[in-house]
C-alpha cells in the first residue's frame, strides 16, 4: 500500500523552491516565467502528495496522466 503525503525530502524541496523562485523574482525574471515556476511547484506538490511523480505532459496535471520517466 502506498501511503499518501509529502515526505521530509519533498518538504525540503518545496521550501527550497519557494526561496529560489523569490530569488528569481528579485533577479528580474519575467512574469510569465515566474508563473511557470510556480505552476511547476504546485504540480510537483500535488502529484508528490499522491505519489504519482511528475506528469509526462505538464499541461495535464490530472492524477491519471502517466508519470514522466527520467531519460
Amino acid at each position, binding site marked *: 500500500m502506498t501511503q499518501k503525503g509529502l515526505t521530509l525530502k519533498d518538504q*525540503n*524541496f518545496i*521550501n*527550497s*523552491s519557494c*526561496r*529560489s*523562485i523569490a*530569488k*528569481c523574482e528579485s*533577479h*528580474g*525574471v519575467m512574469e*510569465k*516565467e515566474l*508563473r*511557470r*515556476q510556480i*505552476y*511547476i511547484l504546485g504540480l*510537483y506538490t500535488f502529484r508528490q502528495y499522491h505519489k504519482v511523480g*511528475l506528469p509526462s505532459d*505538464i*499541461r495535464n496535471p490530472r492524477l491519471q496522466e502517466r508519470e*514522466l520517466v*527520467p*531519460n
Partner: protein
Amino acid sequence: MNTLIRIRGWITDSHVINPQSSIYEPEKIHKLRLQPENPIAFKELEEAIEAVKVRSGTPTNKSINRHKDVLIDGCEMIFKSFYKPKLYGALEDISSDEELLGKFVQTVGHIRIFKDMNIILTAHLIEPALLDDFDPLD
C-alpha cells in the same frame, strides 16, 4: 571519469566571471547555481551519478571517510569548474556575474569523479535557452 550532462534552468547565483575561493577551497573556482526548469532533472542527475559511481567502482560504503558530494542544494544544482565556462550567444558580452542572474540558460558540463571519490558537476558551456510557450494562464 566523466559523463556529459545538459541542464536547462534559471541562474540563481553566479561566480562564473569572478571566481571565488574559500578556506575550504583555496583555489579560485567558477561556480554556478541553477534552478532546473523541471524537477525531473534531479532524478536524472541522481541516476547518472549512480551510474558513474558503479562504472568507476566507487565504494558506496558510507563508512569510508570522504567529503560529502555537494551537487544538489534543495532545488538548485551546483556547478564548479577550475576553468571559466564558455559563454555563448547573447551571454558572450556579459562582463559581470550580476548580469547572468535570472537568465534562462542551458549548461553543458560533466559529472566528474576524482580519485579521492569526490564528485562534482562541471560547467563548460553556458548558452541562452528558449522556454516553450506554455503559460498556465493561457
